[in-house]
């Protein structure tokens, strides 16, 4: 049916596609500019229009940017991956307990988790810095892991709770009758069935932790733990006109998220649809 529509486009359809293509173009323009500029020398920056291809392509800006951002990128990768794993695992356990092992007050506990989502980060910055300093984790990757894990749990708990709500209770009851305890049921039954929500939660957590600037800039100003997002912002201040290095830095910064989406995109879409289609 769709194929037919494409072969015989009605006038309205043509207009629709035209508008969509224009928007795609507008949306991709900054990315394109980022890409072209990253391969331009200082000379090219001055004498070519940003969207133009470089007249003499060079990878010098990419190398310069990488040298500056190598450590921050490594920092970011470390705390992002670790905090992602922790927050997903804890969210999954929370979701399981809240849906399948209901206890007195479990709804209240869930409500408190949900409220956590609506607390703006700015509101907790000062107490957060104080807490992290008291724990001796200021300016450390560990401090960022702890913070991002704690803040990630709210949303991952919500996500896993919704998914586990679709899991039939009879599965859990059957496992109980078969002799499995709470923890064994989680490990042997619930966890193996959680691939889709794990992908969705992982991609979501990776992106939001990787993109975070506020916690990074407040908790890790020193170079030992500085996240890539902060280092990227700092690129702007080093020299006045070297857009090419800044753009190259942005390209490096965007790369991991891009790879994650390319690799997991298929599962991500399936995960989003999981609630809609009954298995």
């Amino acid at each position, binding site marked *: 049916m769709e194929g037919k529509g494409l072969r015989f486009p009605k006038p309205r359809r043509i207009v629709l596609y035209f508008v969509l293509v224009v928007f795609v173009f507008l949306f991709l323009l900054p990315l394109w500019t980022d890409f072209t500029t990253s391969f331009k020398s200082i000379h090219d920056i001055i004498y070519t229009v940003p969207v133009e291809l470089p007249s003499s392509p060079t990878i010098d800006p990419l190398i310069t940017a990488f040298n500056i951002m190598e450590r921050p990128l490594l920092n970011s990768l470390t705390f992002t991956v670790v905090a992602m794993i922790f927050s997903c695992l804890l969210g999954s356990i929370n979701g399981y307990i809240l849906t399948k092992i209901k206890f007195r007050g479990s709804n209240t506990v869930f409500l408190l988790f949900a409220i956590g989502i609506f607390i703006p980060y700015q509101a907790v910055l000062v107490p957060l810095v104080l807490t992290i300093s008291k724990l001796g984790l200021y300016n450390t990757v560990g401090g960022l892991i702890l913070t991002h894990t704690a803040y990630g749990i709210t949303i991952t708990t919500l996500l896993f709770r919704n998914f586990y709500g679709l899991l*039939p209770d*009879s*599965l859990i*009851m*059957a*496992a*109980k*009758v*078969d*002799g*499995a305890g709470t923890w*064994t049921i989680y490990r*042997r*039954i619930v966890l*193996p*069935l959680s691939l889709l929500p794990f992908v969705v939660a992982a991609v979501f957590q990776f992106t939001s932790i990787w993109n975070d600037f506020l916690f990074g800039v407040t908790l890790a100003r020193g170079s030992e733990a500085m996240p890539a997002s902060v280092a990227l912002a700092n690129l702007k201040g080093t020299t006045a006109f070297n857009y090419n290095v800044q753009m190259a830095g942005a390209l490096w910064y965007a790369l991991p998220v891009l790879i994650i989406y390319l690799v997991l995109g298929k599962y991500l879409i399936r995960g989003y649809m999981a609630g809609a289609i009954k*298995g």
Partner: protein
Amino acid sequence: MVNITAKNLTKKYKNTIAVKDLNLQIKDKEFFVFLGPSGCGKTTTLFAIAGLIKIDAGEIWIGDELVSSAEKGIHKAPQERGIAMVFQDYAIYPHMTVFDNIAFPLTISKVKKDEIEARVKKTAELLGISHLLNRKPRQLSGGQRQRVALGRAMVRRPKVFLMDEPLANLDAKLRVQTRIELKKLQLDTGVTTIYVTHDQVEAMTMADRIMVQKDGEVEQIGTPDELYNHPSNLFVAGFIGSPEMNFINCTLIEENKGLYLDAKEFKISLPTKMASELRSYIGTETIMGIRPEDLHESESAEGTTQENAFRMKINLIEPVGPYMLLHLNLGQIPIVATVKETKAKAGQGVIMEMDASKIHVFDKKTTNAII
């Protein structure tokens, strides 16, 4: 000896009482059915026996072991009760192969690997699913999934089988077939079985004894024959049997030393044996019940004064196959009858004779059976 006893069992959910003061004795090797409409408390009772829910009052015994007691604070976990359960949606683990599904209870209780393999294979053979052991549940049909669930229950050699509407998700033909196999399996293994269903045909065909429940209370416990021929109240009478029993409002009266049920449109003379038992109820408002098969087309010609034969109008004839369903009207009273055959056509009148010896009489106020 694995008999099951429930004493004063009560389970409440927030504002509703799911099971109220239930007393029950299930004998060793018995196939016992909990029957009732949805929300009657049958599944709650089953879950309480399984240990999946805690009870609010009373006791449950499996064999000579007290497994649940609200008063003594005893609640044995499901796996400590020696039970196995089959769920309505089978609840087989979707990420495991058939082999792993059946083996799961054994792996959990750390049975040796070669013994697991031997027992799973033997169980699979018994159920005719040996060729499916490496498949995943999504590659199986409904009937095959049902067998896997059954296999997982059997492999543990439980003392008691608990089944929660295990046939409800199968199509009609498969349901009848599996019904027979289940019953045979239970006879062969001799494992005490509790079977929950809302389908009275399933209950009647499979059960040694049936407990009919409604709104958390027990309506009647008895053999299929007892429930069918001697229902203890209006609910059981109406719930068991298809097509349903006919109910007609009547008053019990005495005329010329004979007892009659007077339904205004007609009067039925009761046999003397019945009459002696009913004499003390003269004047009470009652409901008369008569099963469709206890009405017969009268062979005598119209106008004869045969006792308990009345002229009725046929509204509709439904040929079912082995018999015909006649939808009749006796004056204003609708009556359904099953007959082997009839020459009459819809719209015509017919003389129907009621078999007075098969009549049930219920007290209208209490809805309990008088006879």
